[in-house]
């Protein structure tokens, strides 16, 4: 039944993870940085589900883990966006280059 080998799925998840990491380092808009982190978390979800399905089909641990990740990512986004809104009220921008009142 399984026609796509697990390595292909791993390729997708690794690519997604590093695209996310790249976006996190290069983008300067805070909302986009948050979205980049969400991409990385989705790569993790794909990993968990693929490993669960292909390597350990008798278990459910990978599936459960990804459900928890989705839930917590939502909570994290809620807190982060609340803070970013607050940033916007103080600085009138959400560009991370302009938010530099703290520097050594």
């Amino acid at each position, binding site marked *: 039944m399984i026609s796509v080998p697990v390595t292909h799925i791993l390729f997708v998840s690794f690519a997604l*993870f590093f695209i*996310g990491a790249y976006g*996190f380092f290069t983008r300067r808009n*805070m909302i986009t*940085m*948050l979205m980049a*982190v969400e991409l*990385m*978390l989705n*790569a*993790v979800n794909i*990993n*968990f589900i693929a*490993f*669960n399905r292909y*390597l*350990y089909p008798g*278990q459910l*641990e*990978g599936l*459960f*883990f990804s459900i*928890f*990740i989705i839930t*917590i990512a939502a*909570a*994290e986004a809620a*807190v*982060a966006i609340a*803070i*970013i809104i*607050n*940033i916007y009220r*103080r*600085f009138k921008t959400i560009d991370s280059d302009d*938010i530099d*009142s*703290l*520097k*050594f």
Partner: protein
Amino acid sequence: MDFITLVSLLRMELLLTAGLVVLLIYKIFYEGARDKMAGWFTVSVLLGTFLCGIFLPAEGGYFGGMFITGSLAGMEKSILSLGSVFIILFGRTWLENSRHELEFYLLILSVLLGMFFMISAGHLLMFYLGLELATLPLAALAVFDFNKSRSSEAGVKLILNSAFSSALLLFGASLVYGGSGTLYFPELNSAITFPASRGSSFLLLAGFSFLFTGFAFKISAVPFHLWTADVYEGAPVPVTAFLSVISKGAALFVFVAVLYRVFPLYSETWSLVTGLMGALTMVIGNLFAMRQGNLKRFLAFSSITQVGFLLVGVASASQLGHAAVLYFMLIYLFSNLGAFAVVSVIADKTGKETLSDYRGLYKTNPMLALALLVALFSLAGIPPTAGFFGKLFLLNSGASSGMIYLVIFACMNMVVSLYYYLRVVKAMFVDTSDDPIPHFNSGLPVKIVLACSVLGIILLGFFGGLFDYFTSLTFGLQ
């Protein structure tokens, strides 16, 4: 009697949860009332968990082995509770100006609850849930002064960095799951012992590297430290104290437990890397601490340096090192919170927080100056104080694992760190100023904290049985 087992094993966590529920109900019915009661209530809940962890630690596992507790976990949780009590007490002066005093207690309690679950985790999922429960309210705490732009900036830096490091940790966890097929710590350990049998050693190794990096972010070891100083400076002083002591402590406890319990087979590699990171952390922390004029920022960098010393104990990969980490953490709690209490109360009463403002402090506020003196001596590791013994045991554990160069390097860094600790002492006791900080009454809660921390710093060093007791609690490589 399953319910009774649940209550007796999770007694510290349930106590905190009960405290949280009571505070929430209090918040609904007494909206806008003065929150003095709530503060004392939170302190008594935390003192309850503190005593519970020391004298009545639960022993056993629950949730099918996802939750494991014992006397070591009890002791670690007690240390964290005690630190939170100090922070709430000396933070009262600052909280009086805030309209949201009660929310501060709620957030502190939920962060601690997350840390408790993280310390007791026997499964990567439980660990992750605890970690996030500890991280998200912490970001809210960092923006607690939300009218100040610096506080918001600290919060956004904290949440983005911790989200990124959580993603790294999780990616590591997923690879480890792929390589071993389990997420339980004991089973992971045995799966790693025979990697060749499954041909999955690459996945495990890659997963371990990601996990390790994620942890390094959390404990802000160099080169993953850049967020730390900004967050510490921007956040309100009590929150900075919380970040630098309590959340560093919790992350380090779990870091040690995961390294020693789950990945002992890789010990040669991680011992080397941790040692190198420790050396780098000391140097960078020292270099930046030297050029700080702001006391808060200075304490932030000095706490990065202290993490470097703690990493020597972690790198030793022995029971002695584990005990030394626990012992140093307790002493560090007293010394750093003592120093933060003084800085916090002076900033709240007079708004001054630079080194030049502290000139002649001894003339006007002798007790505060003396308390800060004892705390700084202990941070620097000068012999009669407990900080000396803490560092002695850390370096001793490093030397007994054969890392002579690292120990010599750490000693050199201790000498360098004396310079900037004594600079503050000189400003307080030797220098004179035309415009010294005026005399003020610091209030009962701050006095309690300072008395406790000075007593703790002096007595812990002479109370030698404590280290033996910690050694009996801890474990080496398994």
